[in-house]
């Protein structure tokens, strides 16, 4: 049996370092016809808030060159429904579960982190970078002091590993990554979407109901890769790299830049089997290049900078 992709991240034994990105894979069950969910590193479930949210009205998605914009606005059934209805239902898939949470105050992140300190949840990802909600969200993701406060509060309330999901909508990603590490985050994941917009030239109106939305897909990959490379130089904690990864080759670039794991987002919409295909591609690459383990290629593109910092 090929164990070249086996890894351990944040106390999770993973059969592969390929995770799914929040908001692009539902609760995992939606893809059960296409993917053996237990073969993934983890499934990061849809962003969860304290109370249910209906999200934004109007058009929520628009295709753009090599990418897409979305302004879903964190529609989700709320933490209680997740814990009582959804979590028991998805246990049968035997997958690592990372729950992505969003709060409108620092305290809310703490409350959510505490609620999710239960069996069946393997880690908590703090979404401080949703560009599509008015309150909270992005504010916590662009101010290093606020990001640190959110991490500290969540860490105080749960024993689960805490991942801070970083926004690319900042001047210096290194500052944000360092703030997360210093505040005690167990890992950072990056990038969330880039803020963008589209205008309909026939109606003279913005295409999206929320006017602006988050850009994802292949178009953002070079930006994401650069930010992972920079963040790797700034912190020692594990990095989950994401942003436009659509193939094994894309994923390999992120490992070479220093990511410990990768997450697949928009590509799941295009090809629901893409995570499995990327795992296969990674195994073939390691064999071809004579590496025993995916861990052997992490950071190789950093040259003398290989390794952490």
């Amino acid at each position, binding site marked *: 049996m090929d164990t070249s992709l086996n890894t351990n991240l944040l106390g999770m034994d993973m059969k592969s370092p390929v995770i799914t990105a929040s*908001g*692009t*894979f*539902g609760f995992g069950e*939606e*893809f059960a*016809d*296409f993917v053996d969910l237990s073969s993934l590193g983890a499934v990061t479930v*849809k962003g969860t808030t304290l109370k249910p949210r*209906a*999200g934004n009205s109007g*058009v*929520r*998605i*628009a*295709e753009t060159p*090599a*990418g*897409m914009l*979305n302004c*879903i606005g964190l*529609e989700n059934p709320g933490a209680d429904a997740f814990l009582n209805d959804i979590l028991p239902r998805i246990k049968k898939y035997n997958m690592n579960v990372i729950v992505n949470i969003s709060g409108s105050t620092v305290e809310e992140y703490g409350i959510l982190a505490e609620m999710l300190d239960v069996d069946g949840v393997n880690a908590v990802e703090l979404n401080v970078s949703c560009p599509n909600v008015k309150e909270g969200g992005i504010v916590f993701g662009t101010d290093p002091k606020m990001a640190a406060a959110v991490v500290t509060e969540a860490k105080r309330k749960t024993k689960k590993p805490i991942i801070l999901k970083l926004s690319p909508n900042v001047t210096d990603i290194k500052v944000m990554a360092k703030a997360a590490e210093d505040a005690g985050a167990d890992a950072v994941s990056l990038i969330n979407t880039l803020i963008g917009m589209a205008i309909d030239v026939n109606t003279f109106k913005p295409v999206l109901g929320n006017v602006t939305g988050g850009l994802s*897909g*292949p178009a953002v990959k070079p930006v994401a890769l650069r930010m992972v490379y920079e963040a790797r130089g700034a912190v020692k904690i594990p990095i989950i790299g994401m942003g436009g990864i659509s193939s094994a080759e894309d994923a390999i670039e992120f490992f070479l830049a220093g990511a410990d794991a990768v997450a697949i987002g*928009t590509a*799941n*919409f*295009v*090809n*629901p*089997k893409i995570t499995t295909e990327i795992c296969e591609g990674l195994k073939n690459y390691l064999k071809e290049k004579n590496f025993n383990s995916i861990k052997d290629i992490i950071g190789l593109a950093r040259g003398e900078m290989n390794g952490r910092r």
Partner: protein
Amino acid sequence: MVLRKTLTDAEITEQRELIAGVFKMTLHAPEIARTAKPGNFLQVKAAKANTLLRRPLGIADAEGDNISLIYRKIGKGTAELAELQQGDIVSILGALGNSFDESFKNPLLVGGGMGLSPLLFYAQAHKNAAVLMGGRTSSEIFWEDIFKPFAKEIFIATEDGSKGEKGFNVALLPKLLKSGKYDGVIACGPDPMMKKAVDIAREYSVPVEVSLERRMGCGLGACLSCAIDTANGRKKVCKDGPVFKGEEVFF
């Protein structure tokens, strides 16, 4: 029973422009052809596509090992599909969504424009359905010939009066329902048409279903691009729909 969804490459056995800008694409897709139900849709893209996302298209008919899609070229995605020819390969994800109620004895299908596409599959499967079709002008009633082999009766209205009654198709609905011949209405078309069809059907206490169209990302219920409010709470058009009871929908 929820059918297993599949992701497959399918060869185009025929691609034909029915009228300017409207295409019929026939695909060799045995598994989906055998299992798909009227109302189901596919997420489609060219195997070698320049666009990123798939496009949701209702299944217009299933015969033997083949399925057909009838679609209008309205944007980059459908334009790319329209360029394809016999022998080209498309990637299809399906069959997706729920399906229409086929238990009616004498259903009346109410369709406008491309909304007639999933109704064709219904007429083909049910064999005892009547259809009330509408369009702006006579050329848009190319559907009449397509429905003829399957529909029990065909009623027509055009906005300019160039074919059938002058006006909207739903203007004929009260008279048809008053006859008491129909025990169910299935509507698909522009939202105002469906709203009107639901209002009239309810007035005559005839059960009514509608099939909604929304922009979609995944088609699997994951991205929430197509979520809507209904009388029964939040629903995803791709997974809980596209077929809804008329009284559920807020038009």
